[in-house]
């Protein structure tokens, strides 16, 4: 017979430290995320492939942009795009977990809902960092030129400002309970990226479009991430843009999150 479990003393029972946020939990979640082929393709392969299509030809390699070449410019833009895709899909994992009822299962454990939210945020940002690093590694191999200090600063800025999309992903994750939420969000992100000047520099699209673009959520992230390479656009507006959109998405996510934990 299997050994029986003896009755425990309730006084010995504890809630988990940090509400359940632990290296074990994060490690298992990261491994699961990497097992999802679609996530890997969309966040780690697609942005690098886009970069190779647009940024690796001889013409852009020889053209200068700020302290580096245009290849570096496109590399950073694609790193931002990768970070967007990665952090959004990281945040949007919530919607899949809600759709299949895993969130409900977790609600029957000591996992604190705020700790759960933090875990998803850490996962989204980790995936975002991986995406930025992959694009930049491909970029350097393919001829991107920029000083090391500028490169490292750009990597850090592209990654850290993508928190706006982690918030966006979480907001959408709590708003749309669907197993295929990224099929909806992928095109939306592409539209945002286009409007924010990641695919085509905004000064090539005319004054009116350029002005409107400043209010879209990718504009600020792009300007800030490229700032170590080339000062295009207004840094003040860019910072304001990122702050405002992060606030909007975070408030939205918080609102849906509270509704979710109250009901379930």
């Amino acid at each position: 017979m299997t050994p029986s479990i003896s009755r425990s003393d309730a006084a010995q029972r504890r809630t988990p430290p940090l509400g359940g946020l632990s290296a074990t939990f994060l490690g298992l979640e990261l491994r699961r995320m990497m097992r999802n082929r679609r996530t890997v393709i969309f966040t780690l392969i697609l942005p690098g492939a886009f970069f190779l299509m647009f940024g690796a030809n001889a013409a852009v390699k020889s053209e200068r942009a700020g302290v580096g070449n245009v290849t570096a410019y496109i590399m950073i833009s694609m790193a931002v795009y990768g970070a967007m895709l990665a952090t959004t899909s990281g945040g949007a994992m919530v919607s899949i977990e809600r759709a299949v009822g895993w969130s409900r299962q977790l609600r029957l454990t000591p996992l604190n809902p705020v700790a759960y939210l933090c875990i998803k945020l850490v996962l989204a940002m980790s995936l975002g960092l991986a995406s930025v690093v992959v694009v930049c590694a491909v970029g350097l191999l393919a001829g991107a030129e920029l000083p090391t200090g500028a490169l490292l600063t750009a990597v850090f800025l592209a990654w850290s400002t993508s928190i706006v999309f982690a918030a966006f992903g979480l907001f959408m994750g709590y708003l749309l309970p669907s197993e295929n939420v990224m099929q909806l969000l992928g095109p939306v992100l592409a539209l945002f990226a286009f409007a924010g000047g990641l695919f085509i520099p905004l000064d090539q699209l005319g004054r009116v479009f350029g002005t409107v673009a400043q209010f879209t959520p990718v504009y600020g992230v792009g300007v800030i991430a490229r700032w170590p390479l080339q000062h295009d656009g207004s840094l003040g507006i860019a910072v304001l843009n990122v702050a405002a959109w992060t606030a909007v998405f975070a408030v939205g996510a918080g609102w849906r999150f509270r509704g979710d934990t109250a009901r379930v």
Partner: protein
Amino acid sequence: MAENPNTPAVELSGLSKRFGTVVAVDDVSLRIEPGEVVAFLGPNGAGKTTTIDMLLGLSRPSAGQVRIYGGTPRWAVAHGVVASVMQNGGLLKDYTVAETVRLTASLYRPAEPAAEVLARAGITDIADRRVGKCSGGEQQRLRFALALLSNPDLLILDEPTTGMDVEGRRRFWAALGEDSRRGRTVLFATHYLDEADAYADRIVLLRHERIVADGTASEIKSLAAGRTVRAILPGAAKSKLAARPGIESVQVRGDTVLLTGSDSDAVARHLLTRTAARDLEITSRNLEDAFVALTADEPASAVDAHQRTVDQGTLV
């Protein structure tokens, strides 16, 4: 909080839940002592799942209170005092069975060893299988393994053996029975009347959002139909027998009388000591008959049954 032996495992007082104008649970009060195995039985829509949701803190009562070992449902869940196997609890397809157990174990202090709960749930051999490739019964056993991780004082099971084959079901109940003998309290909702009959110390019958009966399986059976007392009694006076308290119906067929009533012992005693009755036989209906009788839409008898339950409840 669980050290005090007088603290009930579960205490529901005046529990109600309304969704708009729809009443899902209506003024349910229930006390379950530590170590009891209680079956929640009732037709669909009787309020079983809504009551369980409130017990687990998944939904807030419109009125009344839930106490688990003296604490709130939130406290009990956060400390692993209560665990549950839900009928439709979600699992992630991309994890293996063992990973799901390790992930959940990371949330409990203390936690049982993963290998032990896998063995107890009988899924050691499929530990490395992806959850998405497991059958419904295997997934249900995984949920059971997860529920054992905190070594909970109270285990709540909503239709726990759905999707299991006969052998799986038998092993499941054997494992549970062993636990409850060591003091674990178990509350389970089930469709299977035979499971309630075979494994529960006590059956709580819900109908139309209320508790209509509460007692052991044999008490429930006698509540519903009463037992039938049959005897040979030549020249029986039907009206005289029918006038006795505790006798609900009298049939006379030749020399044979058939009497039904809630207290068959009293009827039998009367027949044997005060009349010339012989060849006395007492038969009870099975639980299924009781279930149908108690949950059927016949207001008078249900109210009657409920009244008797309340009377009996004061004795418990």
